């Protein structure tokens, strides 16, 4: 199998999704474990039960879905271009999430651990600052939109040199 052919196959297997059901972490990780790789790095972001001293009851996520999907794919493209990784998945959940439920799952496989760690770190940082997704925190006595960062394209295409090398 030629190198180009291999790349195309790997790209076809990449997973970028916004979902409204619980994320099936186990199934995604099984899918990413290629026999030729030796490493799988996973970032599992889940709902915290507090925000600035307030007890969080649940969260709601919303997204500009078409743009968010496109930007997640773009992050995947940068991961491939900059790190020697094999398979990858970026899945974000939307709608109401209870405490402890996974909101974001990023998983990256590679032959050796460093590339997967670095790619995963880049992906979560880029997603948090460059993908149009919003979180509302619901407390017993009210709700607030989470304080976030002004979104930019640079977060995706020119991330910190500390993560992209």
């Amino acid at each position, binding site marked *: 199998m030629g190198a180009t052919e291999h790349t195309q196959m790997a790209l076809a297997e990449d997973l970028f999704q916004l979902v409204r059901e619980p994320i099936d972490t186990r199934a995604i990780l099984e899918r990413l474990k290629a026999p030729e790789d030796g490493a799988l790095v996973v970032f599992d972001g889940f709902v915290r039960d507090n925000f600035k001293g307030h007890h969080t009851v649940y969260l709601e996520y919303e997204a*500009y879905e078409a743009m968010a999907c496109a930007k997640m794919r773009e992050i995947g493209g940068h991961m491939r271009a900059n790190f020697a990784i094999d398979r990858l998945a970026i899945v*974000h959940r939307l709608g109401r999430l209870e405490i402890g439920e996974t909101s*974001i799952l990023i998983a990256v496989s590679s032959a050796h651990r460093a590339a997967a760690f670095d790619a995963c770190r880049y992906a979560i940082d880029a*997603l948090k600052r460059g993908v149009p*997704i*919003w979180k509302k925190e619901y407390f017993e006595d009210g709700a607030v939109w989470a304080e*976030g*960062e002004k*979104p930019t394209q640079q977060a995706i295409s020119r991330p910190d040199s500390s993560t992209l090398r």
Partner: protein
Amino acid sequence: VRVLFFGQLKEIVGSAEQEAELSEGARVEDLFERYGRRFPELAQFRNSIAASVNQEYAEWRALLGPGDEVAFLPPVSGG
């Protein structure tokens, strides 16, 4: 053009989607100013939000054309 609001902005405007008629040569910032006049609370977000045109980040000075999809994006908090 089609105009989309998300998060806090959607709550201020009271809807997620609007249609706007623009004169030729109108820019993203003109469109935002127009909504800022209708919804004064919106104007205070000018420096903390981003804009997109057809699902790509856009400058405030970007020119708009017929059929464009413009979105105003408050600070993001995914992950």
